[in-house]
């Protein structure tokens, strides 16, 4: 039946008016713009801080910028001692925070009874929300005097910062590790128990290896938070921009030095601070890159 009313059906189909079609298109671009804003912001942050830090490349010179001594009043803008400070503080925080965080998560997911889990895990969740300024305050008022007692120093320094940062990143690492452990199907644990494995053997032979990548994610994010922390570190670290003689003597870090000097710095000193901001930005962006690589492997 070859002849069909070819023209007619086409007309009826144009029910949606041209205006709505344009509106839909416009909305689509609006939404895209909102989503793309995140990209624009990241680029803007990098561009702006680098622009403000430009004198580092021209006047200060990278050699001076990556030298050891930080003494703006004497024209020395070396950030290596601050980088070392940040590294020392972060590594120490991870050494204390990771076992505690992962241990707590394993306990809550694998070992704790339902009643205990219902009490502790929401508590840890809530405590992940406590702002770092309160951890810094607690560190300054309790931990610093305590460290001052046990060491002959003033109580400022890497050791105090470790306690504060470890306490701060434990809730983050715990919640993320719990997510990783919960993503392991129960069947695998049952299979292990059915093979006559004890709970501990099931944990370290089956569950932890299976959740390994998720736990690495949690640790890297915890590290990101420790490196990026400013106020808590500023209040307990002592702000001495040197390589410390002991873990109980004052040191300084990138973030705390920026926060300390920002209000009164000017000229080259300010550009050096922005330079440090760029370094911090690059470190945090690389950490995110590592996490995304891991999550790709996990899938």
């Amino acid at each position, binding site marked *: 039946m070859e002849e069909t009313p070819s023209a007619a059906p086409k007309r009826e189909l144009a029910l949606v008016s041209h205006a709505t079609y344009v509106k839909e298109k416009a909305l689509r671009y609006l939404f895209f713009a909102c989503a793309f804003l995140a990209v624009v912001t990241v680029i803007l942050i990098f561009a702006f801080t680098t622009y403000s830090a430009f004198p580092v490349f021209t006047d200060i010179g990278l050699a001076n910028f990556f030298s050891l001594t930080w003494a703006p009043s004497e024209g020395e803008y070396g950030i290596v001692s601050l980088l070392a400070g940040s590294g020392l503080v972060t590594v120490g925080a991870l050494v204390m925070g990771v076992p505690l965080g992962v241990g707590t998560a394993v306990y809550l997911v694998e070992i704790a009874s339902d009643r205990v889990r219902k009490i502790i895990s929401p508590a840890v969740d809530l405590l992940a929300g406590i702002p770092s300024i309160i951890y810094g305050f607690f560190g300054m008022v309790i931990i610093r005097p305590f460290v001052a007692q046990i060491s002959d120093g003033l109580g400022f320094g890497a050791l105090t910062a470790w306690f504060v940062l470890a306490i701060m990143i434990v809730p983050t690492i715990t919640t993320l590790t719990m997510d990783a452990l919960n993503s392991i199907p129960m*069947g695998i644990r049952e299979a*292990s*128990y*059915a093979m*006559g494995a004890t709970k501990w053997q099931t944990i370290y032979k089956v569950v932890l290896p299976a959740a390994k990548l998720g736990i690495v994610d949690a640790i890297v994010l915890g590290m990101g938070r420790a490196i990026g922390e400013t106020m808590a570190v500023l209040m307990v670290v002592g702000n001495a921009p040197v390589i410390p003689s002991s873990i109980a003597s004052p040191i300084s870090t990138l973030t705390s030095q920026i926060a300390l000097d920002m209000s009164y710095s000017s000229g080259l000193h300010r550009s050096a601070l922005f330079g440090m901001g760029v370094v911090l930005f690059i470190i945090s962006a690389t950490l995110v890159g590592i996490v995304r690589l891991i999550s790709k492997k996990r899938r």
Partner: protein
Amino acid sequence: MSVYQSAPTPESSAIIAKDFDFWYGDFHALTGLDVNIARNKITAFIGPSGCGKSTFLRCMNRMNDLIEGTHVSGSMSLDGNNIYAPGVDPVDLRRRVGMIFQQPNPFPKSIYENVAFGPRLQGVTSKSDLDDIVEESLKRANLWKEVSNQLSKDGLALSGGQQQRLCIARVLAVQPDVLLMDEPCSAIDPTSVQKVEDLMAELAPEMTIIIVTHSMQQAARISDYTAFFLQEVAGEPATLIEYGQTDAIFTSPMDRRTEDYITGRFG
């Protein structure tokens, strides 16, 4: 009040349950079970879903202990000693009583590591011993020809049927005396079902096999003895209705409820 048709004698039984009751917290799940499981034979548990047949199976390797608040009464003995006696460590029990689950659950490790898991638990460390055990177990699970050249491949990358046979190989690697199978074939493709059933027939002479199954044809096909469980009233504990040789149960059931079930009138 259970009906028995030429059920196995205690002497010829590997597992003997006497007046066995089971509770999930205060929910009374199973009551008055007196069952003798024949040694080195295949016993099938059938019954409508929720009649406690899986729960009873999981009591035999005390997997239910993992669930909080469960407790039992009466006795269940394996080769003469009561497995619920105070001194018994469920971990040791589970090393002699292997279990296969409804959903194939190989470890997210290589095929080799999956099978070597059990022996490593029992302290086998030398590579040559492990290689031997892995090869022999995979052969006995009729999986060796399909995976012999890719032992380092991830266990999860296998097909459903292959994964289930890998789980069986993993259990065989520790030479259990008893093999519990909780609806092993309900989640795998038909051709693999056939392979698993043939495998069970091969293993039967050396170990006691108990299989929980939904399909009565499977029970009739492969089992020597069949037990029919039923929860007559919702909320009341389930119990054993009839237990005996498979062909007797399926051709001439003595209890009307068994007859109704196997003729498909309910459940």
